[in-house]
């Protein structure tokens, strides 16, 4: 979340509600992500997913507990169709919050490179999300500690479970 003040306000506000309310609000904001999933568009799937995670970490104490005490940083690199060059973005977890960056962090725990947007989609949405499966197909390259990817994928699944995707 870009504005720490908004983040703090939202955190405090949503502490007043039961956790299922937080999940309900997160679900309200998941419309664009759902539409992209439903129509199989991959334009900004990762961006939407990270945005929704970011929101969920703020408003859901329960979901936020996934990153309590967790410090780690990720770089995601994708090669959009049409040879437009590699797009890199990063996320970092620290002090129970997630931060997003539109560039590759030089100091990261793991970097995941997707060969194409379809692979990214499969990576995020496949029913048996397992990084190994895509590594087997040689469509994903992981540099660094693969356990960080396992944790990230758990959080994605946890989010989807909360908002009723899958």
């Amino acid at each position, binding site marked *: 979340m870009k504005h720490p003040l908004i983040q703090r306000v939202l955190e405090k506000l949503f502490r007043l509600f039961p956790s299922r309310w937080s999940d309900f609000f997160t679900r309200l904001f998941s419309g664009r992500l759902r539409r992209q999933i439903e129509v199989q568009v991959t334009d900004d799937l990762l961006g939407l997913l990270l945005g929704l995670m970011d929101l969920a970490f703020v408003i859901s104490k329960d979901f936020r*507990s*996934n990153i309590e*005490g*967790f410090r*780690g940083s990720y770089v995601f690199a994708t090669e959009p169709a049409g040879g437009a060059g590699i797009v890199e973005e990063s996320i970092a977890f620290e002090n129970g919050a997630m931060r997003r960056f539109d560039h590759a962090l030089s100091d990261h725990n793991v970097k995941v490179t997707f060969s194409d947007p379809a692979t990214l989609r499969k990576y995020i949405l496949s*029913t*048996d*999300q*397992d*990084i*190994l*499966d895509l*590594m*087997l197909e*040689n469509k994903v390259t*992981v*540099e*660094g*500690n*693969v*356990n*960080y*990817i*396992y*944790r990230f*994928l*758990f959080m994605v*699944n*946890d989010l989807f*479970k909360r908002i009723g995707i899958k």
Partner: protein
Amino acid sequence: MPDISFTDLSLHRCRLSTRVETLRKAYFDAVPEICTERPLLITRYSREHGLFEKERISILDKARLYRHVLENRTPVVWHERGRKKGMVPFSFVDRQLFAGSTTSKFKGVPLYPEFLGLTLWPELWGLPRRDSNRFYLSEQDVQILNREVFAHWMDASILEIARKRAQKTGNHRHLEQIQLLQKLVFFLATKVQCISHTIPDFSKAVSQGLRALIDQAEGKRALAQDPKQQEFYEAVAVAMEGIIAYARRLSRQARQMADREADPEVRQELMQIAEICGRVPGSPAKSFREALTTIWICWTAVHLENPNIGLSLGRLDQILCEHYIEDIRNQVIDVDGAVELLCCFWLKIGDHVPAIPISGEKLFGGSGSNQAITLGGVDQNGGDAVNDLTYVMLRAAELIKLRDPNLNARYHPEVNSDAYLRRLCEVNINTGATPAIHNDRAVIHALTEKGDRLPQARDYGIVGCVEPGSNGRCYGHSAAILLNLASVLELTLFNGRHRHTGLNRLISTETGTPTTFEAFKTAFKAQLQWMVDQTTDLNNFFGRVHQDVYPTPILSSLFEGPMDKGKDLIEGGAVINSSAATIIGLADVADSLSALKTHVFGEGRTVTFPEMVAALEQDFHGEEALRTLLANPDKTPKYGNDDPKADANVTWLLETIDALFHEKWNYRGGRYRVGYWTMTNHAGFGRLMGATPNGRRGRENFTSGITPVSGVTPELSRALHSVAKQPARFLSSGVALNLKYAPEEDKEQMLNRFVASVKGYFDRDLDDSDGGMEIQFNILDRDTLEDAARHPDDYPELLVRVSGYTAYFKDLNPQMQKEIIDRTQYRLSSGRMILHRPFPLTGERSPS
């Protein structure tokens, strides 16, 4: 020669008892449940005692950790419920004769976050619903694993510690090797997954009791000058105290249950359990049941320390025979009682399954824990070791038909009786898949060639699938390296590059475009050398990480060598300290060499090398005539037809591979050995690989073990001769020859021919060889297998031999099911192959 007291070696009158039938039904009804107890206890203790912060974890640290777990884990005497299909809880009457369990669940999945346990993290929510081999996991346990366990091991698993060390020291070689490992297409290095793959020595625990081992350790500690030795002996004592404490807790629990029990018969059973667990394993076992209890309780402790992958129980008919004979003589038990005890023991051994992520299931799934038990053969003096208990164990296995333990029988053609071999074949026909049969003469020769002393070699047991290792004294980590030989061929064909990783990327070294077959073999050998260098170097690196952070006080206590040397098993404490690689893709690569020699480099060449490479790149599209030519055994020499040209390429590969590996030293001061058994990796690696010059299309399975390629070996006797002539000295880590026989109406005639086929295969007169080393069977008709592939739920107990271990057919992935269905099937009455069309993969099948 021991006296065999049975007139009916088949023990036909012995049947499953009601107790065992009830337990067996519950066992097959039960879905495996993830158990969080071990990882939670381990993680909490490690955090509280600062083990995550330590660069080196001492053996004493580990011993205290395991003692803590043994003193705090749930003492399960009898289970009350399991989970069945649909993850619904069900109750059953558990009247097991052995208390204790590998996990807290009836059929549990132990987790080892120290190794690859975290691979399950992404799918924790989906484990009960995934496509194959579902595991039950409660929502509460998902949170426990997510927050209290896995989060703490992200930087502390063996692989990540190794990677961090390589990064810290700027060791790019190992970092690149780890990258190669993660490509999965070149090799697998299993030290990141386990230590395991060995046979503990239970004889002292049974005959002397753990208290005596503690006394010995304390005595040696008092005399030792070296602080490391002192620490080792202290760790042994601490770990053994932990095991005794666990047994006493079981005893107390049983007594408490007895106090509450109204039924006098049940109360009596519980009191008996309480008494036995109060005595053993601390004290020497006084009866057959106590001896089994000692082994069982020690076994749960060994699995607390080491992942459930290939840990094996060894020659139990030898270790337990005296107790059995004594009890029979004193009428403590009868044969039926012994069979019941063994069936209960078998069920306990199978009370856990390995945790495999879904992609692992897709590629390599269906495996149990591969806990081998070895029967028969010769003793350390070369005498006949087959005894009454051997036959009782065979009968128990025949009746209970479980995947685990993986039963292996030794047979010495010059020492063991024909009646014994006949019984082994009969059990194979009756179970359809077990036991595997090993030729003692060939195996013992192979082991002595690698330096084992003759008595050590004669006392071999089978580890995991089919790997021979001197019982309780050889730490050989027989599956340390799983090498995809087809990738060596690929690097040779594509000048150091691999289609899977992209032909624009140089992986190994450029060996050019060969113009002669000899030049091709030279290039192949160079690529093989590169692969051997990478795999052994990485294995040694991982082994040193084990030495720093994963000492093994429990396994070391139950092993011959460490107590004498005052040294941990993983530091080289065992008497024999080998490591081993197993090779996947032998027959396909050998046939590819034959194809290249005949059609590319031969006098009547039909295709140039670049044309062959281009055809492979195109997966033979537009080159069907070439593919047909390459696949045709009448036009292209094929291993398995007793064709000297084809078989010579196999021998060359075996000799070359053995020589290159045997040059290498491991991190414990031993040398590398080589085996040819593939588990399900021939299907997994096959799925990743493009077309090969033997006419195999891309993504098709490779052939298992040392078996000739399916469908190209029409005559059984020729197939057996081709394999049997391969020199045993190059096969010191075992082989799996998979044969499939069609069931026949005339059982007696079938049995006669079955025995004759095994005897012929083991015959030493063939080419002055030792005869074939190992043989294992599936005796199933094709219709059954096809129907089971289409309706897996109708065949929950259908047991098959994969390549080494036995598996339930329903648990195998579709590619592996296809491989077993498509294996060459022979009719023993004709000795000829039965022709079948290839079975379609899932998605291509029409429902029947």
